[in-house]
Protein backbone atom coordinates (compact mmCIF):
# COMPACT_ATOMS: atom_id res chain seq x y z
CA UNK A 1 0.00 0.00 0.00
CA UNK A 2 1.28 3.39 -0.96
CA UNK A 3 -1.23 6.03 0.15
CA UNK A 4 1.15 8.88 -0.59
CA UNK A 5 1.47 7.87 -4.23
CA UNK A 6 -2.31 7.49 -4.40
CA UNK A 7 -2.74 10.99 -3.01
CA UNK A 8 -0.28 12.48 -5.50
CA UNK A 9 -1.98 10.69 -8.37
CA UNK A 10 -5.46 11.83 -7.44
CA UNK A 11 -4.22 15.39 -6.87
CA UNK A 12 -2.52 15.52 -10.23
CA UNK A 13 -5.30 14.05 -12.34
CA UNK A 14 -8.35 15.08 -10.43
CA UNK A 15 -8.08 17.65 -7.62
CA UNK A 16 -6.02 20.30 -9.40
CA UNK A 17 -7.90 20.13 -12.71
CA UNK A 18 -11.26 20.11 -10.91
CA UNK A 19 -10.27 23.05 -8.73
CA UNK A 20 -9.22 25.05 -11.80
CA UNK A 21 -12.28 24.05 -13.81
CA UNK A 22 -14.54 24.75 -10.83
CA UNK A 23 -13.01 28.23 -10.45
CA UNK A 24 -13.68 28.99 -14.12
CA UNK A 25 -17.27 27.75 -13.77
CA UNK A 26 -17.72 29.75 -10.56
CA UNK A 27 -16.81 33.05 -12.24
CA UNK A 28 -19.31 32.29 -15.00
CA UNK A 29 -22.03 31.05 -12.65
CA UNK A 30 -21.68 34.21 -10.53
CA UNK A 31 -22.64 36.25 -13.59
CA UNK A 32 -25.65 34.00 -14.25
CA UNK A 33 -26.84 34.33 -10.69
CA UNK A 34 -26.35 38.13 -10.67
CA UNK A 35 -28.31 38.58 -13.89
CA UNK A 36 -31.00 36.26 -12.62
CA UNK A 37 -31.46 38.16 -9.39
CA UNK A 38 -31.36 41.67 -10.90
CA UNK A 39 -32.77 41.34 -14.41
CA UNK A 40 -34.79 38.26 -13.43
CA UNK A 41 -34.14 36.03 -16.39
CA UNK A 42 -31.90 33.11 -17.30
CA UNK A 43 -29.14 34.54 -19.47
CA UNK A 44 -28.72 31.93 -22.20
CA UNK A 45 -26.18 34.02 -24.09
CA UNK A 46 -23.72 33.61 -21.21
CA UNK A 47 -21.42 31.02 -22.80
CA UNK A 48 -21.22 32.73 -26.17
CA UNK A 49 -20.69 36.22 -24.77
CA UNK A 50 -17.89 34.68 -22.73
CA UNK A 51 -16.40 33.44 -26.00
CA UNK A 52 -16.67 36.90 -27.57
CA UNK A 53 -15.04 38.56 -24.58
CA UNK A 54 -12.24 36.02 -24.69
CA UNK A 55 -11.86 36.70 -28.42
CA UNK A 56 -11.30 40.34 -27.46
CA UNK A 57 -8.57 39.30 -25.04
CA UNK A 58 -6.97 37.06 -27.68
CA UNK A 59 -6.99 39.90 -30.20
CA UNK A 60 -5.32 42.14 -27.65
CA UNK A 61 -2.80 39.41 -26.81
CA UNK A 62 -1.80 38.92 -30.45
CA UNK A 63 -1.42 42.67 -30.89
CA UNK A 64 0.77 42.92 -27.79
CA UNK A 65 2.86 39.92 -28.87
CA UNK A 66 3.35 41.53 -32.29
CA UNK A 67 4.59 44.66 -30.54
CA UNK A 68 7.05 42.51 -28.63
CA UNK A 69 5.40 43.21 -25.28
CA UNK A 70 5.88 40.42 -22.77
CA UNK A 71 5.44 39.96 -19.05
CA UNK A 72 7.07 36.52 -18.98
CA UNK A 73 6.85 34.28 -17.03
CA UNK A 74 3.20 35.40 -16.88
CA UNK A 75 1.03 35.01 -19.99
CA UNK A 76 0.67 38.15 -22.12
CA UNK A 77 -3.11 37.60 -22.10
CA UNK A 78 -3.25 39.05 -18.58
CA UNK A 79 -2.23 42.43 -19.99
CA UNK A 80 -4.98 42.22 -22.59
CA UNK A 81 -7.74 41.46 -20.06
CA UNK A 82 -8.68 45.13 -19.46
CA UNK A 83 -9.08 45.59 -23.21
CA UNK A 84 -11.26 42.47 -23.41
CA UNK A 85 -13.35 43.76 -20.50
CA UNK A 86 -13.99 47.06 -22.26
CA UNK A 87 -15.08 45.21 -25.40
CA UNK A 88 -17.26 42.85 -23.41
CA UNK A 89 -18.96 45.51 -21.29
CA UNK A 90 -19.57 47.60 -24.39
CA UNK A 91 -21.13 44.61 -26.13
CA UNK A 92 -23.33 43.67 -23.16
CA UNK A 93 -24.54 47.25 -22.71
CA UNK A 94 -25.29 47.50 -26.42
CA UNK A 95 -27.27 44.24 -26.24
CA UNK A 96 -29.11 45.62 -23.22
CA UNK A 97 -29.96 48.87 -24.98
CA UNK A 98 -30.97 47.20 -28.26
CA UNK A 99 -32.77 44.15 -26.90
CA UNK A 100 -33.47 43.79 -23.20
CA UNK A 101 -34.32 47.38 -22.28
CA UNK A 102 -37.35 47.22 -24.60
CA UNK A 103 -38.68 44.13 -22.83
CA UNK A 104 -38.11 45.77 -19.46
CA UNK A 105 -40.13 48.76 -20.58
CA UNK A 106 -43.08 46.62 -21.67
CA UNK A 107 -42.66 44.48 -18.54
CA UNK A 108 -42.34 41.25 -20.54
CA UNK A 109 -42.55 37.86 -18.88
CA UNK A 110 -39.24 36.20 -17.91
CA UNK A 111 -39.69 33.56 -20.60
CA UNK A 112 -39.67 36.25 -23.30
CA UNK A 113 -36.40 37.57 -21.88
CA UNK A 114 -34.95 34.07 -22.04
CA UNK A 115 -35.97 33.73 -25.69
CA UNK A 116 -34.49 37.16 -26.43
CA UNK A 117 -31.23 36.09 -24.80
CA UNK A 118 -31.33 32.97 -26.96
CA UNK A 119 -31.40 35.27 -29.98
CA UNK A 120 -28.52 37.28 -28.60
CA UNK A 121 -26.70 33.99 -28.09
CA UNK A 122 -26.99 33.03 -31.79
CA UNK A 123 -25.90 36.47 -32.97
CA UNK A 124 -22.95 36.54 -30.55
CA UNK A 125 -21.98 33.04 -31.54
CA UNK A 126 -21.94 34.07 -35.20
CA UNK A 127 -19.82 37.14 -34.53
CA UNK A 128 -17.27 35.13 -32.56
CA UNK A 129 -16.96 32.51 -35.31
CA UNK A 130 -16.57 35.20 -37.94
CA UNK A 131 -13.77 36.77 -35.93
CA UNK A 132 -11.98 33.67 -34.67
CA UNK A 133 -13.05 30.78 -36.90
CA UNK A 134 -14.36 27.53 -35.51
CA UNK A 135 -11.03 25.87 -34.85
CA UNK A 136 -8.85 26.03 -31.80
CA UNK A 137 -6.79 29.12 -31.01
CA UNK A 138 -3.95 28.84 -28.53
CA UNK A 139 -2.82 32.05 -26.89
CA UNK A 140 -0.99 30.79 -23.85
CA UNK A 141 2.62 31.98 -23.58
CA UNK A 142 5.10 32.56 -20.78
CA UNK A 143 6.12 29.83 -18.38
CA UNK A 144 3.84 26.81 -18.87
CA UNK A 145 4.54 25.05 -15.58
CA UNK A 146 5.11 26.10 -12.01
CA UNK A 147 6.62 22.64 -11.61
CA UNK A 148 6.60 19.61 -13.91
CA UNK A 149 6.04 15.93 -13.23
CA UNK A 150 9.78 15.22 -13.53
CA UNK A 151 10.75 18.04 -11.17
CA UNK A 152 8.20 16.85 -8.63
CA UNK A 153 9.44 13.24 -8.85
CA UNK A 154 13.08 14.24 -8.53
CA UNK A 155 12.26 16.46 -5.57
CA UNK A 156 10.13 13.98 -3.61
CA UNK A 157 11.49 10.64 -4.82
CA UNK A 158 7.94 9.31 -5.22
CA UNK A 159 7.04 6.96 -8.07
CA UNK A 160 3.99 9.05 -8.94
CA UNK A 161 4.47 12.54 -10.38
CA UNK A 162 2.48 15.75 -10.16
CA UNK A 163 2.55 18.92 -12.22
CA UNK A 164 1.08 22.34 -11.61
CA UNK A 165 0.46 24.34 -14.77
CA UNK A 166 0.70 28.11 -14.46
CA UNK A 167 -2.74 28.54 -16.03
CA UNK A 168 -4.23 26.35 -13.31
CA UNK A 169 -2.50 28.15 -10.47
CA UNK A 170 -3.41 31.50 -12.00
CA UNK A 171 -7.06 30.44 -12.31
CA UNK A 172 -7.42 29.33 -8.72
CA UNK A 173 -5.72 32.42 -7.29
CA UNK A 174 -7.60 34.85 -9.53
CA UNK A 175 -10.94 33.25 -8.74
CA UNK A 176 -10.29 33.51 -5.01
CA UNK A 177 -9.30 37.18 -5.23
CA UNK A 178 -12.27 38.03 -7.46
CA UNK A 179 -14.72 36.28 -5.12
CA UNK A 180 -13.40 38.20 -2.12
CA UNK A 181 -13.69 41.50 -3.99
CA UNK A 182 -17.18 40.66 -5.22
CA UNK A 183 -18.44 39.80 -1.74
CA UNK A 184 -16.87 42.93 -0.35
CA UNK A 185 -18.59 44.95 -3.07
CA UNK A 186 -22.02 43.37 -2.50
CA UNK A 187 -21.93 43.58 1.27
CA UNK A 188 -20.01 46.76 2.01
CA UNK A 189 -20.56 49.32 -0.73
CA UNK A 190 -23.61 51.47 -1.35
CA UNK A 191 -23.88 50.30 -4.97
CA UNK A 192 -23.56 46.64 -3.96
CA UNK A 193 -26.19 46.97 -1.26
CA UNK A 194 -28.54 48.69 -3.68
CA UNK A 195 -28.14 45.66 -5.97
CA UNK A 196 -29.06 43.30 -3.16
CA UNK A 197 -32.00 45.49 -2.18
CA UNK A 198 -33.25 45.55 -5.77
CA UNK A 199 -32.90 41.78 -5.96
CA UNK A 200 -34.78 41.33 -2.67
CA UNK A 201 -37.73 43.62 -3.30
CA UNK A 202 -37.93 45.60 -6.51
CA UNK A 203 -40.91 47.78 -5.56
CA UNK A 204 -39.52 48.73 -2.19
CA UNK A 205 -36.16 49.52 -3.80
CA UNK A 206 -37.97 51.94 -6.11
CA UNK A 207 -39.71 53.53 -3.12
CA UNK A 208 -36.33 53.91 -1.44
CA UNK A 209 -35.06 55.92 -4.37
CA UNK A 210 -32.84 53.24 -5.92
CA UNK A 211 -32.56 53.82 -9.67
CA UNK A 212 -33.25 50.49 -11.43
CA UNK A 213 -31.43 51.42 -14.64
CA UNK A 214 -28.30 52.13 -12.63
CA UNK A 215 -28.55 48.80 -10.86
CA UNK A 216 -28.95 47.07 -14.23
CA UNK A 217 -25.91 48.93 -15.59
CA UNK A 218 -23.73 47.90 -12.65
CA UNK A 219 -24.90 44.30 -13.06
CA UNK A 220 -23.83 44.18 -16.72
CA UNK A 221 -20.48 45.77 -15.93
CA UNK A 222 -19.71 43.23 -13.20
CA UNK A 223 -20.97 40.35 -15.31
CA UNK A 224 -18.80 41.50 -18.21
CA UNK A 225 -15.69 41.55 -16.04
CA UNK A 226 -16.47 38.12 -14.60
CA UNK A 227 -17.10 36.70 -18.08
CA UNK A 228 -13.81 37.94 -19.49
CA UNK A 229 -11.88 36.60 -16.51
CA UNK A 230 -13.61 33.23 -16.65
CA UNK A 231 -13.22 32.95 -20.43
CA UNK A 232 -9.58 33.98 -20.47
CA UNK A 233 -8.62 31.63 -17.66
CA UNK A 234 -10.52 28.77 -19.31
CA UNK A 235 -8.84 29.54 -22.64
CA UNK A 236 -5.38 29.67 -21.11
CA UNK A 237 -6.06 26.37 -19.38
CA UNK A 238 -7.71 24.45 -22.22
CA UNK A 239 -7.37 26.48 -25.42
CA UNK A 240 -10.00 28.62 -27.13
CA UNK A 241 -12.76 27.06 -29.26
CA UNK A 242 -16.12 28.87 -29.60
CA UNK A 243 -18.06 25.61 -29.37
CA UNK A 244 -16.49 24.70 -26.02
CA UNK A 245 -17.62 28.02 -24.59
CA UNK A 246 -21.16 27.41 -25.77
CA UNK A 247 -21.02 24.02 -24.05
CA UNK A 248 -19.97 25.66 -20.79
CA UNK A 249 -23.49 27.07 -20.58
CA UNK A 250 -24.83 23.80 -19.16
CA UNK A 251 -22.35 23.34 -16.28
CA UNK A 252 -22.53 27.06 -15.46
CA UNK A 253 -26.32 26.94 -15.20
CA UNK A 254 -26.19 23.66 -13.31
CA UNK A 255 -23.80 25.31 -10.83
CA UNK A 256 -25.98 28.40 -10.36
CA UNK A 257 -29.18 26.35 -9.95
CA UNK A 258 -27.55 23.74 -7.70
CA UNK A 259 -26.22 26.48 -5.43
CA UNK A 260 -29.52 28.34 -5.45
CA UNK A 261 -30.27 30.95 -8.12
CA UNK A 262 -29.65 34.44 -6.82
CA UNK A 263 -27.14 33.32 -4.21
CA UNK A 264 -23.53 34.25 -5.09
CA UNK A 265 -22.14 31.90 -2.46
CA UNK A 266 -24.35 29.17 -3.91
CA UNK A 267 -22.98 29.76 -7.41
CA UNK A 268 -19.44 29.21 -6.14
CA UNK A 269 -20.25 26.09 -4.13
CA UNK A 270 -22.35 24.74 -7.00
CA UNK A 271 -19.53 25.32 -9.48
CA UNK A 272 -17.05 23.27 -7.46
CA UNK A 273 -19.59 20.50 -6.88
CA UNK A 274 -20.28 20.29 -10.62
CA UNK A 275 -16.57 20.35 -11.48
CA UNK A 276 -15.64 17.64 -8.98
CA UNK A 277 -18.62 15.51 -10.02
CA UNK A 278 -17.75 15.78 -13.72
CA UNK A 279 -14.14 14.84 -13.18
CA UNK A 280 -14.75 12.32 -10.40
CA UNK A 281 -17.25 10.30 -12.39
CA UNK A 282 -15.20 10.29 -15.59
CA UNK A 283 -11.80 9.75 -13.96
CA UNK A 284 -10.11 6.34 -14.24
CA UNK A 285 -9.46 5.46 -10.60
CA UNK A 286 -7.40 2.36 -11.38
CA UNK A 287 -4.02 3.93 -10.54
CA UNK A 288 -5.26 5.30 -7.22
CA UNK A 289 -6.73 1.97 -6.17
CA UNK A 290 -3.66 0.09 -7.30
CA UNK A 291 -1.73 2.11 -4.73
CA UNK A 292 -4.39 1.78 -2.05
CA UNK A 293 -5.40 -1.90 -2.20
CA UNK A 294 -3.32 -4.65 -0.61
CA UNK A 295 -1.12 -6.66 -2.94
CA UNK A 296 -3.00 -9.14 -5.09
CA UNK A 297 -6.26 -7.18 -4.86
CA UNK A 298 -5.42 -4.52 -7.43
CA UNK A 299 -8.30 -3.66 -9.74
CA UNK A 300 -8.14 -5.12 -13.20
CA UNK A 301 -10.58 -2.71 -14.86
CA UNK A 302 -10.12 1.03 -15.45
CA UNK A 303 -12.45 1.81 -12.52
CA UNK A 304 -14.01 4.56 -14.60
CA UNK A 305 -17.71 5.12 -14.03
CA UNK A 306 -18.34 6.91 -17.33
CA UNK A 307 -16.14 7.74 -20.34
CA UNK A 308 -14.90 11.33 -20.48
CA UNK A 309 -17.22 12.06 -23.42
CA UNK A 310 -20.13 11.77 -20.99
CA UNK A 311 -19.02 14.46 -18.57
CA UNK A 312 -21.88 16.73 -19.60
CA UNK A 313 -24.28 13.88 -18.85
CA UNK A 314 -23.08 14.06 -15.26
CA UNK A 315 -23.88 17.76 -15.12
CA UNK A 316 -27.22 17.19 -16.76
CA UNK A 317 -28.04 14.50 -14.21
CA UNK A 318 -27.16 16.91 -11.38
CA UNK A 319 -29.40 19.56 -12.92
CA UNK A 320 -32.35 17.18 -13.25
CA UNK A 321 -31.94 15.81 -9.73
CA UNK A 322 -31.77 19.31 -8.23
CA UNK A 323 -34.81 20.53 -10.17
CA UNK A 324 -36.78 17.46 -9.14
CA UNK A 325 -35.88 17.22 -5.49
CA UNK A 326 -34.66 20.60 -4.35
CA UNK A 327 -35.51 23.28 -6.92
CA UNK A 328 -34.37 26.06 -4.58
CA UNK A 329 -30.83 24.65 -4.57
CA UNK A 330 -28.42 24.34 -1.66
CA UNK A 331 -28.69 27.93 -0.44
CA UNK A 332 -32.44 28.40 -0.96
CA UNK A 333 -32.42 30.48 -4.09
CA UNK A 334 -35.34 31.27 -6.34
CA UNK A 335 -37.15 28.60 -8.31
CA UNK A 336 -36.73 29.00 -12.04
Amino acid at each position, binding site marked *: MEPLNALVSVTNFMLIPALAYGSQLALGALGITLIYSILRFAHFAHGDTMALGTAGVIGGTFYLQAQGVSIAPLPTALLAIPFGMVVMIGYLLAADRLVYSYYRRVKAKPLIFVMASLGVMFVTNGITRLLMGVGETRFEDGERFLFTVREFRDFTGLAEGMALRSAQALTIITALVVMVILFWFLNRTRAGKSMRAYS*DNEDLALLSG*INPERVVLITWVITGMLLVLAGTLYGLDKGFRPFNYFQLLLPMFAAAILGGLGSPLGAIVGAYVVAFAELGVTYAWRRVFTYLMPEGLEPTSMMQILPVDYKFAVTFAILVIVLLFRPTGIFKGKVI
Partner: protein
Amino acid sequence: MADPVLIGEGMTGGYGGADILHNCTIAVEKGQIAVIVGPNGAGKSTAMKAVFGMLKLREGSVRLAGRDISHLSPQARVAEGMGFVPQTSNIFPSMTVEENLEMGAFIRRHNIRATMEQVYELFPILREKRNQAAGELSGGQRQQVAVGRALMTEPTVLMLDEPTAGVSPIVMDELFDRIIEIARTGISILLVEQNARQALAIADKGYVLVQGENRYTDTGAALLADPQVRKSFLGG
Protein backbone atom coordinates in the same frame (compact mmCIF):
# COMPACT_ATOMS: atom_id res chain seq x y z
CA MET B 1 -57.98 77.30 8.56
CA ALA B 2 -54.63 76.69 6.87
CA ASP B 3 -54.22 73.96 4.31
CA PRO B 4 -53.49 70.55 5.91
CA VAL B 5 -49.99 69.09 5.49
CA LEU B 6 -51.37 66.54 3.07
CA ILE B 7 -54.70 66.47 1.33
CA GLY B 8 -56.16 64.34 -1.42
CA GLU B 9 -59.22 66.30 -2.47
CA GLY B 10 -62.15 65.07 -4.52
CA MET B 11 -60.20 62.05 -5.72
CA THR B 12 -61.94 60.04 -8.44
CA GLY B 13 -60.23 57.20 -10.25
CA GLY B 14 -59.25 53.52 -10.36
CA TYR B 15 -56.72 51.10 -11.77
CA GLY B 16 -57.72 51.70 -15.37
CA GLY B 17 -61.13 49.99 -15.36
CA ALA B 18 -64.14 51.29 -13.47
CA ASP B 19 -63.60 54.02 -10.89
CA ILE B 20 -62.99 52.76 -7.38
CA LEU B 21 -62.84 56.14 -5.68
CA HIS B 22 -65.68 58.61 -6.07
CA ASN B 23 -65.02 62.19 -5.02
CA CYS B 24 -63.09 60.97 -2.00
CA THR B 25 -61.26 63.40 0.26
CA ILE B 26 -58.56 62.46 2.78
CA ALA B 27 -56.48 64.98 4.74
CA VAL B 28 -54.04 65.00 7.63
CA GLU B 29 -52.84 67.91 9.77
CA LYS B 30 -49.33 68.40 11.07
CA GLY B 31 -48.41 66.00 13.85
CA GLN B 32 -51.83 64.41 13.80
CA ILE B 33 -53.06 60.91 13.09
CA ALA B 34 -55.69 60.37 10.40
CA VAL B 35 -57.24 56.96 10.06
CA ILE B 36 -59.10 55.48 7.11
CA VAL B 37 -61.51 52.70 8.10
CA GLY B 38 -64.37 50.94 6.40
CA PRO B 39 -65.63 47.52 5.35
CA ASN B 40 -63.68 45.20 3.06
CA GLY B 41 -63.50 46.48 -0.48
CA ALA B 42 -64.41 50.01 0.53
CA GLY B 43 -61.32 51.36 -1.22
CA LYS B 44 -59.34 52.19 1.94
CA SER B 45 -55.97 51.07 0.56
CA THR B 46 -56.89 52.44 -2.85
CA ALA B 47 -57.50 55.86 -1.32
CA MET B 48 -54.08 55.78 0.30
CA LYS B 49 -52.42 54.63 -2.90
CA ALA B 50 -54.16 57.46 -4.74
CA VAL B 51 -52.69 59.94 -2.28
CA PHE B 52 -49.28 58.36 -2.87
CA GLY B 53 -49.61 58.48 -6.65
CA MET B 54 -49.88 54.77 -7.29
CA LEU B 55 -53.02 55.12 -9.37
CA LYS B 56 -54.16 57.66 -11.87
CA LEU B 57 -56.76 60.16 -10.78
CA ARG B 58 -59.38 61.22 -13.26
CA GLU B 59 -60.46 64.08 -11.04
CA GLY B 60 -59.25 65.73 -7.90
CA SER B 61 -55.80 66.66 -6.70
CA VAL B 62 -53.22 65.85 -4.05
CA ARG B 63 -51.44 68.69 -2.25
CA LEU B 64 -48.46 68.41 0.06
CA ALA B 65 -47.87 71.50 2.23
CA GLY B 66 -50.04 73.50 -0.14
CA ARG B 67 -48.17 72.41 -3.29
CA ASP B 68 -49.94 70.39 -5.97
CA ILE B 69 -48.12 67.07 -6.35
CA SER B 70 -50.77 65.26 -8.41
CA HIS B 71 -48.41 64.84 -11.36
CA LEU B 72 -45.49 63.38 -9.32
CA SER B 73 -44.53 59.69 -9.36
CA PRO B 74 -44.48 57.80 -6.04
CA GLN B 75 -40.66 57.94 -6.01
CA ALA B 76 -40.73 61.70 -6.48
CA ARG B 77 -43.23 61.99 -3.65
CA VAL B 78 -40.84 60.12 -1.37
CA ALA B 79 -38.20 62.71 -2.19
CA GLU B 80 -40.76 65.44 -1.35
CA GLY B 81 -41.20 64.04 2.15
CA MET B 82 -43.81 61.31 1.99
CA GLY B 83 -43.00 57.98 3.61
CA PHE B 84 -44.98 54.89 2.65
CA VAL B 85 -45.12 51.50 4.34
CA PRO B 86 -46.85 48.99 2.05
CA GLN B 87 -49.05 46.33 3.57
CA THR B 88 -47.03 43.37 2.31
CA SER B 89 -43.42 42.81 1.22
CA ASN B 90 -42.37 45.99 2.95
CA ILE B 91 -38.85 44.93 3.94
CA PHE B 92 -35.70 43.59 2.23
CA PRO B 93 -35.81 40.06 3.73
CA SER B 94 -32.27 38.88 2.97
CA MET B 95 -30.65 42.10 4.19
CA THR B 96 -29.87 42.87 7.81
CA VAL B 97 -32.05 45.22 9.85
CA GLU B 98 -29.38 47.90 9.67
CA GLU B 99 -29.03 47.52 5.89
CA ASN B 100 -32.81 47.85 5.58
CA LEU B 101 -32.59 51.19 7.39
CA GLU B 102 -29.63 52.26 5.23
CA MET B 103 -31.60 51.50 2.08
CA GLY B 104 -34.48 53.56 3.45
CA ALA B 105 -32.09 56.50 3.56
CA PHE B 106 -30.71 55.81 0.08
CA ILE B 107 -31.69 59.23 -1.27
CA ARG B 108 -29.99 60.96 1.66
CA ARG B 109 -26.24 61.13 1.90
CA HIS B 110 -25.69 62.96 5.17
CA ASN B 111 -26.39 62.35 8.80
CA ILE B 112 -27.96 58.95 8.34
CA ARG B 113 -26.52 57.83 11.68
CA ALA B 114 -28.55 60.33 13.71
CA THR B 115 -31.81 59.26 12.08
CA MET B 116 -30.91 55.62 12.57
CA GLU B 117 -30.27 56.35 16.24
CA GLN B 118 -33.78 57.85 16.51
CA VAL B 119 -35.29 54.75 14.90
CA TYR B 120 -33.37 52.51 17.30
CA GLU B 121 -34.64 54.59 20.23
CA LEU B 122 -38.18 54.23 18.97
CA PHE B 123 -37.78 50.47 18.37
CA PRO B 124 -35.10 49.22 20.80
CA ILE B 125 -35.53 45.63 19.63
CA LEU B 126 -34.20 46.64 16.21
CA ARG B 127 -30.92 47.77 17.74
CA GLU B 128 -30.57 44.36 19.34
CA LYS B 129 -31.27 42.60 16.04
CA ARG B 130 -29.50 45.04 13.75
CA ASN B 131 -27.13 42.45 12.27
CA GLN B 132 -29.82 39.84 11.73
CA ALA B 133 -31.54 39.30 8.38
CA ALA B 134 -34.87 41.14 8.47
CA GLY B 135 -36.64 38.14 6.92
CA GLU B 136 -35.80 36.04 9.98
CA LEU B 137 -37.65 38.33 12.40
CA SER B 138 -41.16 37.86 13.80
CA GLY B 139 -44.14 39.54 12.15
CA GLY B 140 -44.26 42.40 14.64
CA GLN B 141 -40.53 43.03 14.41
CA ARG B 142 -40.71 43.04 10.61
CA GLN B 143 -43.38 45.74 10.79
CA GLN B 144 -41.04 47.74 13.00
CA VAL B 145 -38.31 47.36 10.40
CA ALA B 146 -40.76 48.47 7.71
CA VAL B 147 -41.82 51.55 9.65
CA GLY B 148 -38.19 52.28 10.56
CA ARG B 149 -37.15 52.05 6.91
CA ALA B 150 -39.81 54.59 5.93
CA LEU B 151 -38.77 56.92 8.76
CA MET B 152 -35.18 56.99 7.47
CA THR B 153 -36.08 59.52 4.76
CA GLU B 154 -37.23 61.87 7.56
CA PRO B 155 -40.67 62.24 6.02
CA THR B 156 -43.17 64.94 6.96
CA VAL B 157 -46.02 62.49 6.37
CA LEU B 158 -45.89 58.78 7.11
CA MET B 159 -48.45 56.56 5.45
CA LEU B 160 -49.09 53.07 6.77
CA ASP B 161 -51.21 50.49 4.96
CA GLU B 162 -52.67 48.13 7.59
CA PRO B 163 -49.51 47.88 9.70
CA THR B 164 -51.20 45.57 12.22
CA ALA B 165 -52.40 42.98 9.70
CA GLY B 166 -51.42 39.55 10.93
CA VAL B 167 -49.78 40.55 14.22
CA SER B 168 -50.95 39.55 17.70
CA PRO B 169 -53.15 41.94 19.79
CA ILE B 170 -50.27 42.69 22.14
CA VAL B 171 -47.96 43.60 19.28
CA MET B 172 -50.77 45.64 17.75
CA ASP B 173 -51.14 47.78 20.91
CA GLU B 174 -47.38 48.21 20.99
CA LEU B 175 -47.32 49.34 17.35
CA PHE B 176 -50.13 51.83 17.93
CA ASP B 177 -48.20 53.26 20.90
CA ARG B 178 -45.14 53.72 18.65
CA ILE B 179 -47.28 55.40 16.00
CA ILE B 180 -48.53 57.89 18.58
CA GLU B 181 -44.92 58.54 19.58
CA ILE B 182 -43.97 59.19 15.96
CA ALA B 183 -46.85 61.64 15.60
CA ARG B 184 -45.63 63.48 18.72
CA THR B 185 -42.35 64.25 16.96
CA GLY B 186 -44.35 66.32 14.46
CA ILE B 187 -44.70 63.74 11.70
CA SER B 188 -48.23 63.49 10.30
CA ILE B 189 -49.60 59.97 10.07
CA LEU B 190 -52.08 58.56 7.61
CA LEU B 191 -53.21 55.08 8.54
CA VAL B 192 -55.39 52.48 6.84
CA GLU B 193 -56.73 50.02 9.39
CA GLN B 194 -58.74 46.83 9.55
CA ASN B 195 -58.99 47.08 13.35
CA ALA B 196 -61.28 50.07 13.23
CA ARG B 197 -62.07 50.41 16.92
CA GLN B 198 -58.45 50.50 18.14
CA ALA B 199 -57.38 52.71 15.25
CA LEU B 200 -60.09 55.29 15.82
CA ALA B 201 -59.14 55.38 19.49
CA ILE B 202 -55.75 56.88 18.57
CA ALA B 203 -57.03 58.95 15.64
CA ASP B 204 -57.32 62.72 15.62
CA LYS B 205 -59.35 62.41 12.45
CA GLY B 206 -61.24 59.41 11.13
CA TYR B 207 -62.55 58.70 7.66
CA VAL B 208 -65.15 56.01 7.18
CA LEU B 209 -65.17 54.98 3.53
CA VAL B 210 -67.90 52.96 1.85
CA GLN B 211 -67.63 52.01 -1.80
CA GLY B 212 -64.97 54.59 -2.45
CA GLU B 213 -66.92 57.51 -0.97
CA ASN B 214 -66.59 59.41 2.28
CA ARG B 215 -69.48 58.15 4.46
CA TYR B 216 -68.52 59.66 7.84
CA THR B 217 -65.75 62.11 8.66
CA ASP B 218 -65.12 63.33 12.17
CA THR B 219 -62.66 63.15 15.05
CA GLY B 220 -61.79 59.63 16.11
CA ALA B 221 -63.57 60.02 19.43
CA ALA B 222 -66.73 61.37 17.82
CA LEU B 223 -66.86 58.48 15.34
CA LEU B 224 -66.40 55.99 18.16
CA ALA B 225 -69.30 57.61 19.99
CA ASP B 226 -71.57 57.85 16.94
CA PRO B 227 -74.28 55.15 17.28
CA GLN B 228 -74.67 54.89 13.51
CA VAL B 229 -70.96 54.24 12.97
CA ARG B 230 -70.87 51.85 15.91
CA LYS B 231 -73.80 49.87 14.60
CA SER B 232 -72.62 49.63 11.00
CA PHE B 233 -68.86 49.42 11.22
CA LEU B 234 -67.71 48.67 14.75
CA GLY B 235 -69.97 45.75 15.54
CA GLY B 236 -72.28 47.54 18.01
